[in-house]
């Protein structure tokens, strides 16, 4: 690993203290709660490990500044900006076709050898040679997209495989393709980091650190999440569900305390001559609520609904009964689909749309018709023990909101909560009927998985 001395050779030389405080500031902007005490600890830590090994510096700062693993990806990206890898490309490339071929050759070798140090150098060279855009030798910007679209590392798969495949095909070799794909993806990430670093040198680190580093997965807005982010969100479901389950169990335990069981206390007092020395507390049967979800799965909010369904599915031990209904403009029960979807959460949304009767004559969501149909056809699903969660943005595409239907359902249920993935300032704008619905049932904004976890934990009855 090339030693990188902070405050070393690069143009924006600044001392380790400035770098550290800059880093802390950038992390705070990303919502990390870092106190002054921790910054001081980080300083001590840097002193203790020295600056000779960049990865040690990274680990030392992570140990002192982070409070959880979820923060790590953001931390790593910010760290790469403030403590960049020294050096950069060894050879100056002009971006010619010959250079490109030669670089691809070396990249294939490095991927075959899975040589981390060589890949880091190659990433730097690639961005330097092929990622610049703008005018003149001192280009205006650096683009990882441009670098990657010219370098096309994914097309190296066959070449790397040929280089690595042993003569005697072994069982583990069938894993090779996936391994190489993972290495290539790691290389692409290195290129992105390098491009960000170069842009940071030009524009000032602080600005880039604030803008160009994506936040943690649980803070991603449901309505804006891309495909990859949704996958990442999905991975946060399982731990989230377990956490919620323990929290619910603890709450039940606490709620069960406190009431004295008179009969058993007196019975026990016989051994102490009628003096009730040890009161006996009443044991309560755990009352498990029934849960019904009514989800809008139309295109605009599908990610949110899917995510919530997965969470509830993961929580299903906590409830005596969970039923899930999906709608676009017609309602259908999808409980069975969700149960079967356990093995393949990724395709869940598509399957629901394909297998359930959710749309009538058009594909736009229609809350009024859907609510009406739900109230008529599935009235038995909602009873005095039911907690109903409605998920959706309450955008009815100008159709009749059918408030009466929601009112009917709300009267039957023990409680109704409406989770809306839009921010409250947008409620009531355009075709949103959110304020009208919010007068009948309790409506809350729920924009990311962190909020969702907190909300569900709070809203569910003991």
């Amino acid at each position: 690993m090339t030693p990188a001395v902070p405050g070393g050779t690069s143009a924006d030389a600044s001392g380790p203290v400035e770098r550290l405080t800059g880093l802390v500031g950038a992390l705070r902007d990303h919502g990390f709660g870092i106190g002054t005490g921790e910054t001081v600890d980080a300083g001590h830590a840097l002193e203790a490990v020295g600056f000779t090994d960049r990865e040690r510096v990274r680990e030392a700062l992570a140990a002192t500044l982070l409070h959880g693993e979820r923060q790590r990806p953001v931390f790593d990206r910010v760290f790469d900006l403030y403590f960049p890898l020294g050096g950069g490309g060894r050879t100056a490339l002009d971006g010619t076709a010959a250079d490109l071929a030669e670089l691809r050759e070396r990249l294939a070798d490095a991927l075959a050898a899975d040589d981390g140090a060589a890949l880091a150098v190659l990433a730097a060279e690639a961005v330097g040679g092929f990622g610049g855009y703008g005018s003149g030798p001192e280009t205006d910007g650096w683009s990882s997209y441009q670098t990657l679209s010219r370098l096309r590392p994914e097309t190296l798969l066959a070449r790397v495989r040929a280089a690595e495949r042993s003569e005697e095909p072994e069982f583990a070799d069938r894993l090779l393709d996936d391994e190489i794909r993972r290495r290539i993806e790691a290389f692409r990430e290195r290129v992105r980091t390098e491009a960000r670093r170069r842009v940071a040198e030009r524009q000032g680190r602080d600005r880039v650190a604030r803008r160009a580093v994506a936040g943690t997965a649980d803070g991603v807005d449901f309505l804006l999440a891309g495909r990859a982010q949704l996958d990442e969100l999905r991975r946060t479901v399982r731990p989230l569900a377990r956490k919620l389950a323990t929290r619910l169990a603890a709450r039940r335990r606490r709620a069960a305390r406190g009431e004295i069981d008179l009969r058993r206390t007196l019975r026990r007092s016989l051994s102490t001559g009628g003096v009730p020395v040890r009161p006996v507390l009443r044991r309560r049967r755990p009352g498990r609520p029934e849960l019904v979800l009514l989800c809008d799965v139309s295109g605009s909010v599908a990610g949110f609904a899917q995510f919530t369904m997965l969470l509830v599915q993961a929580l299903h031990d906590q409830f005596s009964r969970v039923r899930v209904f999906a709608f676009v403009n017609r309602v259908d029960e999808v409980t069975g689909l969700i149960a079967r979807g356990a093995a393949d959460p990724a395709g869940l949304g598509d399957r629901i749309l394909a297998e359930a009767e959710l749309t009538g004559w058009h594909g736009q969501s229609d809350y009024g018709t859907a609510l009406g149909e739900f109230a008529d056809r599935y009235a038995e699903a909602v009873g005095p023990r039911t907690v109903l969660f409605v998920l959706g943005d309450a955008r009815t595409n100008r159709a009749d909101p059918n408030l009466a239907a929601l009112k009917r359902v709300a009267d039957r249920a023990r409680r109704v909560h409406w989770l809306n993935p839009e921010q409250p300032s947008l409620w009531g704008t355009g075709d949103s009927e959110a304020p009208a619905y919010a007068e009948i049932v309790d409506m809350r904004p729920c924009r990311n998985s962190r909020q969702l976890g907190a909300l569900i934990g709070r809203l569910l009855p003991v």
Partner: protein
Amino acid sequence: MTTGFFSSVDDVAERLATTGYLASRAVATTVFLADRLGKPLLVEGPAGVGKTELAKAVAEVTGARLVRLQCYEGVDESRALYEWNHAKQLLRITSGRGESWDETRTDIFSEEFLLARPLLTAIRSEEPTVLLIDETDKADVEVEGLLLEVLSDFQVTVPELGTIAAARRPFVVLTSNASRELSEALRRRCLFLHIGFPEEELERRIVTRKVPGLDAALATSVVRVVGALRAMDLRKVPSVSETIDWARTLLALGADRLDEGVVRDSLGVLLKHQDDIVKAAAKLDLEAV
């Protein structure tokens, strides 16, 4: 402030290796810092990656005494810190030698009747100590409050005896599986270390180390298959301890190389859910399980 066990990061890595604990760079660096800054170390990560082992290994290489507090639901102050030996106190009172109550009272609340539990033991220990607070997330929130007090000042107040400060700062390791979020306040007191699954190269070395007699090529294949399983979307991906178990199984089966049959028959060692096994078998192209 320091516990003074290690002289440098490399020192940590080398000495831990002598016990068979192969530390990644992150682990070595953080252990060194915990030692140097005298702060408790909060270790998180999936089950079976060696969180508890780390504390044991540190105790072993430094010749320190290992004091372990195993947390569970309902662990309380008297289990974690200290309690009075009531039976012995009663005996003392009934065998009273005719002295006044005041004398008896001061007597029965003395050192002799105090039962030190792990936290107090670690704080009072004169010799070098490693305090392992295992599965902190299993304990109730009130215990966290207690830990906050103990871990920030390394002192404990017993009303009848006064404040007992640490004679020597213990090296503290807290482990957590994240089944409950620990409080921000506790996290702030600690250095944070996440032990994830090791890189391929490190895991290969760990396996060869723990399962001597395993063919080197086979060890490589084992680690590659485990790596592939971890990349799948399974309910419970195999951890390092499962990798080692699998390597031992293969050794016991006398397998000298991996093929479909061997993998299919022993997949249960790695995966603990039937639907995971089915899924993995399908992805790895094994015939029907």
